């Protein structure tokens, strides 16, 4: 049984002009201990997905259809109190900007102790010990002294480590990391990604990694989900999706990433831009920009087909299979 099972989830935004569908019938799952990457460009809906899972959807957004199951039970319709308990204890979260994720008025030690005591049954002294352990585990040098430091006294990389410590404090089964390294320098990025990977392996936590950076996915994720305009277009093992992309969008995406070893004169580009929420085309959302577009793509939204080790939502892929 999958640890996290998202089934046919749709998220809509009510505004006076009507309803906007930000997530349209998406399904994904994460097994215990695996790292799932959710990749997509801005506006694709990946952050919204993680927000929906952890129950932090901001009004006027709401779950309009589908279910989210965690460890076999439904969590999308839990009352606020129960969701609060779930959050932190079983699902931890790391967000993009470590500066705003930490309260500037309290020392990092205080924040850690507060989180630990909220979820684990420890007295203050034991909680303190555990807090220092966590700081050491996340690679903060001089953890015992840094315990008393305030967020503004730490660098960006250090702060993100503290946020990670907060996320794993109660040994959650699932860690949601939303663009955890985007705001950091490239050398720090590498350190943090390595840390996440190690922690995940050591504690057996699954990780849902949301990012726009394929490189990060390649480094850390076991499987990857590619999103476009609120829909999932391709899912598969990381190596497969990166080396053998099948959906035209994924192919275009992989080709437009400049590579260190690349000698191309011109980067292959996908013309046009991702549609905004209110103007998603009928049928397949990608069809206006697709090089393999067929007549059917304009009318019907593609179903998901298996192709090799991946699942792809594309009529062209089905056609190829039929031909083969």
């Amino acid at each position, binding site marked *: 049984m999958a640890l996290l099972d998202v089934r046919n989830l749709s998220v809509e935004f009510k505004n006076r002009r009507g309803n906007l569908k930000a997530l349209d019938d998406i399904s994904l799952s994460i097994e215990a201990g695996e790292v799932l990457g959710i990749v997509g460009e801005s506006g694709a809906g990946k952050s919204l997905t993680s927000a929906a899972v952890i129950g932090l959807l901001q009004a006027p957004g709401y779950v309009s259809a589908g279910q989210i199951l965690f460890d076999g039970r439904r969590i999308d319709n839990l009352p606020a109190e129960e969701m609060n308990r779930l959050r932190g204890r079983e699902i931890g979260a790391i967000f993009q900007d470590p500066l705003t994720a930490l309260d500037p008025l309290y020392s990092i030690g205080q924040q850690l102790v507060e989180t630990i005591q909220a979820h684990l049954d420890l007295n203050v002294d034991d909680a303190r010990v555990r807090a220092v352990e966590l700081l050491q585990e996340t690679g903060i040098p001089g953890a015992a002294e840094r315990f008393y430091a305030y967020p503004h006294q730490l660098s960006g990389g250090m702060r993100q480590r503290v946020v990670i410590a907060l996320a794993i404090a109660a040994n959650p089964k699932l860690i949601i990391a939303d663009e955890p390294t985007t705001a950091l320098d490239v050398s720090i990025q590498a350190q943090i990604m390595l840390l996440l990977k190690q922690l995940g392996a050591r504690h057996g936590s699954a990780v849902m990694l949301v990012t726009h950076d394929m490189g990060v996915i390649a480094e850390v994720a076991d499987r990857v989900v590619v999103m476009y305009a609120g829909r999932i277009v391709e899912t598969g093992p990381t190596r497969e999706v990166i080396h053998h992309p099948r959906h035209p969008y994924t192919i275009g995406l992989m080709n437009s990433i400049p590579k*260190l070893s690349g000698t191309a004169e011109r980067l292959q580009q996908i013309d046009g831009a991702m549609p905004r929420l209110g103007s998603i085309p009928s049928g397949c959302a990608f069809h206006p920009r697709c090089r393999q577009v067929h007549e059917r793509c304009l009318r019907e939204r593609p179903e998901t087909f298996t192709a090799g080790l991946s699942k792809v939502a594309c009529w062209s892929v089905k056609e190829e299979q039929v031909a083969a």
Partner: protein
Amino acid sequence: MKTEMDMGSRAVAVSGLAKYFDTSRPWLNRLLEGAPKQVMRAVDDVSFSIERGKTLALVGESGCGKSTVARLLVGLHQATHGEIRVFGQDIGVVKTKAGKALRQKIQMIFQDPYASLNPRWRIKRIIAEPMLEHQLVQGEAEIEKRVAELIATVGLSTADLNKYPHQFSGGQRQRISIARALATQPDFLVCDEPTSALDVSVQAQILNLMKDLQKNHGLTYLFISHNLAVVSYVADEVAVMYMGRSVEMADKDSIFCAPLHPYTQMLLEAVPDLEMSGKARQAPLGEVSSSSNPSRGCAFQPRCRHAVARCAEERPEMRRVEHTLVACHLAKPQWLNARQSASEGS
């Protein structure tokens, strides 16, 4: 590759550039506490040159001073020391009336597409501003024609001219910024992380556009970036900066295939491996320290795997090692033997 004597023939020549910012506490506080003046050396003795029609990429992480260098080159900051010559003229001349012609030849593209266009101006006015400022066009008709040409060059339509910036996406705004930069027919463009805020597929469009423009108009680029993969695509030559100092400078191939400075090597190691070759990577050590107290020796020494005693005492000068200029006491072509040679007395 250039030599120190060769500066005159290059489109852009910068030597000994330095910019210090006064970060002292307020005067009254200093008086009462007896605290010393504090100076932050954002740019600390940087030299480079760019050949006409080529791209020099300035690479480094946050705090290395590359954005400050960009601003110094377009005249937004005044250099504390050093000389900047663009097309043979000192950059200081742009402040004078006589220097207006040079101003037209230098333009800049900024990182944040959401802040680089005035939210209250229509696109037409934004693009026309440089032309009007330098009186390059006369009359409504000519302005319309010229602006329409520019907007077409960057791949947008004339219908977009009457709209406001908030009606466009990040990539489109960056195109508009480029159109504005091209309005005075410049020869030298300083690009400060022009694609860092854009999605990968949009980035590809913008980079292709910039490359096409360079080819068609013979533009010279100074391209600032922290993304080495992007740099490998656009640059002809690369200069690596660390905490205000330049640490390595070479043509693109040398930098990527045979990096000599430990920091460059670390940066390259840190780039995620899309090939997924499964190669084991070493995580970089430590973090960039705050630069209010410049060290006497090499700035990178606290994080360097190969550092020896000399590195903490003596600041390394840029010296030539084969095809590269590198500021490191230990760098040698046979890098792996470096520590051995150092202990033997280099």
